[in-house]
């Protein structure tokens, strides 16, 4: 972290395709530092936040995220996370975090069997996290999704713990914030769209906030998640 800017390290796997969106959001919209991190180089280059971006790492072969999880840089990412470093996984990045065991559960095939690419509405569950501290519980955000495997699943014990610990940050909802089956685009249990780990430093979500940081892209709601993250560093430094 330089004097006033946070450094976002954006991991590039073979098949990542939202790496440039994340870079653009961090560097040009949020006015922070950003650098790409090639997956074969086990060096996080003093990043403050690691982003595992969306895409189709390794062609989604075997299972989404299953092979990327063993890329050389992932040992560094896991160590970084276990030491309290901030890691954000978006879409394929969320899938990789689950495969790596940094977040619980898995992302199954969408119940429709269709790849779903559209704007959805998600409800913010609470503001007691570094990813949502600039938001308010009940806020509705309009953010795009683009995935074929976004159907969040975990055993009942794990789901119970996520709910009890406040680890569910975002749920698919209708435009009024009602959690309904018709607003659930993929079949995720409890309409889960995004979760964090128990320690609160690793977050994964299927919707793409980095693609919703500017009004000309249809929504700037996603920026509020990054604003929260930046605010958490400012609070930490204060």
């Amino acid at each position, binding site marked *: 972290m330089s004097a006033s800017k946070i450094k976002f390290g954006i991991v590039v796997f073979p098949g990542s395709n939202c790496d440039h969106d994340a870079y653009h959001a961090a560097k040009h919209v949020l006015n922070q530092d950003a650098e790409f991190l090639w997956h074969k180089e086990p060096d996080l280059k003093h990043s403050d936040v690691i982003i595992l971006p969306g895409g189709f790492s390794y062609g989604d072969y*075997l*299972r989404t995220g*299953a*092979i990327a999880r*063993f890329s050389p840089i992932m040992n560094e990412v896991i160590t970084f996370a276990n030491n309290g470093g901030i890691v954000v996984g978006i879409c394929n990045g969320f899938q990789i975090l*689950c*495969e790596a065991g940094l977040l619980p*559960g*898995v992302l*199954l*095939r*969408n*119940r*429709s*069997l269709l790849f779903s690419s559209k704007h959805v509405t998600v409800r913010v569950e609470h503001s007691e996290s570094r990813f949502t501290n600039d938001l308010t519980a009940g806020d509705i955000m309009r953010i795009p999704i683009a995935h074929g495997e976004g159907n969040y*699943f*975990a*055993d009942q014990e794990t789901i119970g713990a996520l709910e009890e610990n406040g680890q569910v940050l975002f749920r698919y909802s209708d435009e009024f914030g009602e959690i309904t089956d018709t607003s659930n685009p993929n*079949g995720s249990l409890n309409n889960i769209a995004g979760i964090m780990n128990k320690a609160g430093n690793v977050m994964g979500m299927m919707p793409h906030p980095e693609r919703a940081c500017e009004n000309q892209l249809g929504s700037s709601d996603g920026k509020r998640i990054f604003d929260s993250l930046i605010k958490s560093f400012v609070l930490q430094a204060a």
Partner: protein
Amino acid sequence: MYQSTITITLRPSILDVQGKAVELGIHTLGMKEVENVRIGKSIQMTVNAPSEDEAKRITEEACKKLLANSVMEDFSYTIKSV
């Protein structure tokens, strides 16, 4: 050398939406007797191991560490000398 043939399927507690879609297709063909269609993966690999027990150990390790995700999948395998 040994050949492992691994079968990976979604755990019984998980709704297999692909299996359901295929089951519907089979029913459309008139075969109403067919039920419980589950889609899985079949993986074949050769293992250079000095014994069948060692080939089994390596196969299981590969399944547990990479080929199957125990949160959602079960695996089974057969091994033969080649």
